[in-house]
């Protein structure tokens, strides 16, 4: 399908120029700047120009690694992401299977509801959930008879609430993708399994699961990447990271260090750590794609 005429490269380059300019200028250069800022003592005095910049080398990183708070935030981030990823996958997969067992009208009802959850902007979704779980005027407390109970006070209850909101708006992607995957399995394969006397469970485990594996890997890693980066939900639902910052995750922590505490250098170093961790996940993603036969 490709033609290799002379001058192709030049035309291709011309077509690519606007995109490359934007990507280099607004993604590449900022990444370089992020690393650079993380190597300096960059606070409010330096920003206003009163104090010259001092090069710290890796001191911000050393401070970070020696700080117990950083490790607890890192742990919380991993734990929070894990709960969200597992919740999203379990709910998404279960509902995808359920959707294959019902008639069209029921399936459409479910998909329409899921589409609504999927489409709701994170800011609006977070606010709605906050109101549903409001201590005094919330519907949930009314139903449970626990009026006055604060769902955002206790650290783990608050994390649980945010995780539930994240799962609510991210399971539809998994459900729709896996449903399409299950539907793509040829009917003959399943018939053959049934003829061989395989039970429904056996068919699911030995026939469907291996066929769906590449798709499962993709949605899992996609979910890890999304849930590791959750910002808006935590920021809005726990009011910027909870009381005394006990509901912080890495992204919010970096933001608060930079823009609330004016420790831009330290904030940038947290950002670099987050980026590196995500790049490692991405490498796994690329390898998984390669294994599943995707060609670029």
């Amino acid at each position, binding site marked *: 399908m490709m033609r290799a005429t002379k001058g192709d490269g030049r035309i291709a380059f011309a077509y690519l120029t*606007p995109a490359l300019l934007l990507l280099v200028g607004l993604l590449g250069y900022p990444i370089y700047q992020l690393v650079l800022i993380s190597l300096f003592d960059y606070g409010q005095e330096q920003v206003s120009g009163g104090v010259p910049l001092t090069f710290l080398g890796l001191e911000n990183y050393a401070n970070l690694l020696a700080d117990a708070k950083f490790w607890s935030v890192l742990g919380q981030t991993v734990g929070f992401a894990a709960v969200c990823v597992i919740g999203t996958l379990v709910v998404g997969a279960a509902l995808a299977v359920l959707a294959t067992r019902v*008639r069209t009208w029921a399936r459409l009802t479910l998909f329409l509801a899921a589409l609504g959850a999927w489409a709701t902007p994170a800011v609006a979704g977070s606010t709605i959930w906050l*109101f549903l779980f409001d201590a005094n005027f919330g519907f949930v407390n009314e139903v449970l008879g626990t*009026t006055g109970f604060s769902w955002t006070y206790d650290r783990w209850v608050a994390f649980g609430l945010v995780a539930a909101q994240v799962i609510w708006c991210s399971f539809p992607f998994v459900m729709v993708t896996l449903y399409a995957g299950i539907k793509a399995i040829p009917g003959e394969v399943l018939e053959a399994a049934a003829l061989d006397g395989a039970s429904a469970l056996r068919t699911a485990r030995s026939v469907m699961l291996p066929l769906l594996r590449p798709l499962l890997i993709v949605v899992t890693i996609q979910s890890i990447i999304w849930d590791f980066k959750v910002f808006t939900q935590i920021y809005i639902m726990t009011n910027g990271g909870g009381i005394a910052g006990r509901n912080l995750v890495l992204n919010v922590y970096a933001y608060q260090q930079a823009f609330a505490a004016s420790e831009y250098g330290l904030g940038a170093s947290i*950002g670099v750590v*987050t980026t590196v961790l995500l790049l490692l996940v991405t490498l796994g993603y690329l390898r998984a794609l390669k294994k599943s036969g995707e060609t670029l």
Partner: protein
Amino acid sequence: MRRGIAEVVTVLIAGVVAFPLYWMVLTALKPESEVISADPRPWTLAPTFDSFVRALTVQSFGRYLVNSLVVAFAVVLISLLISFLAATALTRFRFRSRTTLLVMLLVVQMVPVEALTIPLFFMMKSVRDVVPVFGLNHLGSLVLVHLAFSLPFAIWMLRGFVAAVPVELEEAATLDGASRFRFLWQVLFPLVAPGLVATSVLSFIHAWNDFLFAKTFIISAAENQTLPLALQVFVKPDQNDWGAIMAGSTLMTIPVLVFFILVQRRLVAGLAGAVKS
């Protein structure tokens, strides 16, 4: 009978999933006394548009709505043109570094853009001194960052749509004497329109939903704020105006919902293509 039970369960789950949205619209339509009530009811007998009026007038929500629309449409239109050209280059031409570029496009999608707020904040601060409209406190700064962030995925997704157009068509057009330029805009562009719609919607949603960059860049120009931030002005330490917040949320959610429903088929097809099942 087992299917009957499965269907009842399905509908119940759909109800739970849709409930927060129902609650949002319901609260937006309730009179204030019913919103701030110790025993909230899941219905209202006196629906009113008071909360919408409050949201749109008191805090000039309308102004923020327009700002959000301006940013989102600017991002959509510009990214449409740029990603179409880039996707064409990446599918119709073979050149060195093509694979490298594709891998880069995939990798940059994983960069946590939240971490880039710090360097971008300082960049936009410097830009403000040179070209004010693209600097801090101006909508242009938001257009620029969302363009950059939505391009990789847009290009990645459009690639599949461009590749689906048979090369013979281009050869036929060339034989008929059409220039490369004419082929591009009069043949290829209309043919990949469905893909362009799907990618546009994603770019729109990306820009429309943004909370973080609006919060970081629009620091002292209240008149240039966008919807997600405007929603926060009703959140007050003493007493949140929940009616207005829910009315605002409704106004913010409806456009996205409409777009989503319009393109959901293509979206799913496009995503399936992008992740390749």
